[in-house]
């Protein structure tokens, strides 16, 4: 759920939890109850352990106490609510003030992340500890383990990109990405990482043919794969889709056996690029043929991918407006109303 709440696993609660208010070594501290503001209108019920721990946390914070017992209490507070960023801040202050063993802290944060991998605070905390230690040696393996449980964990991927870039750990990353794509070729995060690695290492010029082959190979395995097609278009876009020799033919061939809306959209993009960048010696007739093929694709997609009908009709209209001849025998696109450009102030009717 939104608040990332979790129930404490019963094997972590000691047989009897002794409240802090009953512990004699805490007797010197006055617990600070929750303050919901000057005139609280709500009566709030807390679980006993939660209110006990947090009452003492507030007391420590108020006194800015820098002690081992404070540090121990942050662990309790985190156990109850790992999203509470103020507790993490305080823990970091204590880690430094008490010169705590950072390797032990790495073990701690590893365990916490394994339990609660979708939490901003835990990952940022780990990053800070890695920075303080200046030691990334465990990171790639750790992140790989988290990704093996959820291959799209956004936080995990951020952390991975940071580690790789900061400590220049590029060498094995392309292999790592390929393994993930073998497991799930639709993993958009892995495709993004592929782009990340190649951009920062070899670049795309020499690698282009290899990357095209790779994409087409993956597409054959799973034709309806938005990520693979986005990637292919993304890497070719800077040079222009029609600049790549033989690409159109390969895609047309693929169309026979592995068609998909993405393939058709890509074909359209190829035709559009050809029209935009046509050389002077390309005959008008040739241009109009290309345009016709592109418009047919839009028609087809508007009928098949009906949820995005408006987009496909838009594409056809735009292309026609730009490159259409003034030939009156031109057929209008079926089902093609006049475009209504939404004006920014208006709310549209559903």
């Amino acid at each position: 759920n939104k608040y990332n709440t979790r129930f404490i696993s019963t094997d972590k609660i000691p047989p009897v939890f002794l409240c802090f208010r009953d512990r004699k070594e805490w007797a010197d501290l006055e617990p600070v109850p929750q303050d919901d503001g000057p005139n609280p209108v709500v009566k709030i019920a807390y679980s006993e352990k939660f209110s006990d721990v947090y009452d003492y946390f507030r007391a420590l914070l108020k006194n800015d106490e820098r002690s081992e017992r404070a540090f121990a209490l942050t662990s309790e507070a985190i156990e109850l609510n790992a999203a509470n960023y103020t507790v993490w801040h305080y823990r970091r202050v204590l880690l430094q003030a008490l010169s705590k063993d950072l390797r032990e802290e790495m073990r701690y944060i590893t365990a916490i992340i394994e339990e609660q991998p979708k939490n901003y605070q835990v990952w940022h905390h780990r990053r800070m500890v890695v920075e303080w230690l200046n030691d990334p040696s465990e990171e790639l393996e750790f992140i790989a383990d988290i990704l093996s449980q959820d291959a799209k964990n956004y936080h995990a991927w951020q952390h991975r990109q940071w580690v790789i870039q900061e400590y220049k750990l590029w060498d094995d990353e392309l292999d790592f990405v390929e393994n993930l794509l073998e497991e799930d070729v639709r993993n958009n995060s892995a495709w993004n990482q592929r782009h990340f690695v190649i951009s920062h290492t070899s670049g795309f010029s020499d690698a282009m043919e290899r990357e095209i082959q790779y994409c087409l190979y993956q597409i054959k395995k799973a034709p309806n794969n938005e990520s693979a097609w986005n990637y292919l278009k993304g890497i070719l876009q800077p040079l222009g889709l029609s600049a790549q020799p033989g690409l159109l033919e390969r895609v047309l061939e693929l169309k026979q056996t592995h068609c998909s809306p993405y393939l058709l959209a890509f074909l359209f993009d190829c035709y559009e690029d050809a029209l935009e960048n046509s050389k002077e010696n390309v005959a008008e007739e040739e241009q109009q043929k290309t345009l016709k093929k592109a418009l047919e694709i839009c028609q087809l997609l508007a009928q098949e991918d009906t949820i995005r009908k408006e987009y496909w009709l838009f594409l056809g209209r735009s292309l026609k407006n730009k490159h259409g001849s003034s030939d009156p025998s031109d057929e209008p696109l079926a089902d093609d109303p006049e475009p209504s450009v939404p004006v920014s102030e208006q709310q549209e009717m559903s």
Partner: protein
Amino acid sequence: MGTQVKDVIIKPDAPSTLLLDKHADYIAAYGSKKDDYEYTLSEYLRMSGIYWGLTVMDLMGQLPRMNRQEIIDFIKACQHECGGISASIGHDPHLLYTLSAVQILCLYDSVDALDVDKVVEYIKGLQQEDGSFAGDKWGEIDTRFSFCAVATLALLGKMDTINVDKAVEFVLSCMNFDGGFGCRPGSESHAGQIYCCSGFLSLTGQLHQVNADLLGWWLCERQLPSGGLNGRPEKLPDVCYSWWVLASLKIIGRIHWIDKAKLRSFILACQDEETGGFADRPGDMVDPFHTLFGVAGLSLLGDEQIKPVNPVLCMPEDVLQRINLQPDLLS
């Protein structure tokens, strides 16, 4: 064709009419129920929780049911010496909660409850050399925080206090090969981050830098056969993406690329007829976060029972008109 692997199936008996009264009752009562473990656990985001609740109540014309003075006093107690505002009393300041606090005070026309100059100083102090913004003194960088910074400053009329050009440069460096944006340069495109970056570029007058057709295509690809929207490829739909995706499309002038009727029926199906409120997807537990974004999404789709919502700031349009803030949108 185009079969998606991941989606939900909406049951035939799912809610199909808008239950505004139930939602208003749900929000009005939130936090006063006996079993409030969830409420307690969410204390670390309380300021945003209040912003979600108040905004959705205002959109439904029900703002008077909330406790204006208590909330203003609460916000005052959350402003720290450094100028930043925390999620709740006794918590540390953060950009996220600074924005939420200023949004709330704009709803209540009470921005003077804060030391505005100090807020501005706090935000300015979080800008990094590369133009990015940290969320707080601990240094986490994220385009969400770029958005929080400029949105807060825009609401206060103090945008010129930061290095806008550098801020823009950083956000643009987060634009990906698919036209989308992530949280840092190289991060995967994600609808939530795209919303933040589109909103940022709107507020800084830089929407022309967006590839609107390419991004619009990526965004309308978020719509699944159920009608719902996901946040990136191969993920389940979630009603909060009715906001992140839809608002982004509205900002870049491509909202008509979504099948509105299908989206509307998905959003309505996320309502809980018994408790009121919206859940992330049909049948799940409701919460104020998803309730706001469900209602705001319906507003963007043109539901006349709901006040018009501004797609950049997720606040009622009439509030922004009052303070004369009309961020750019592409057409």
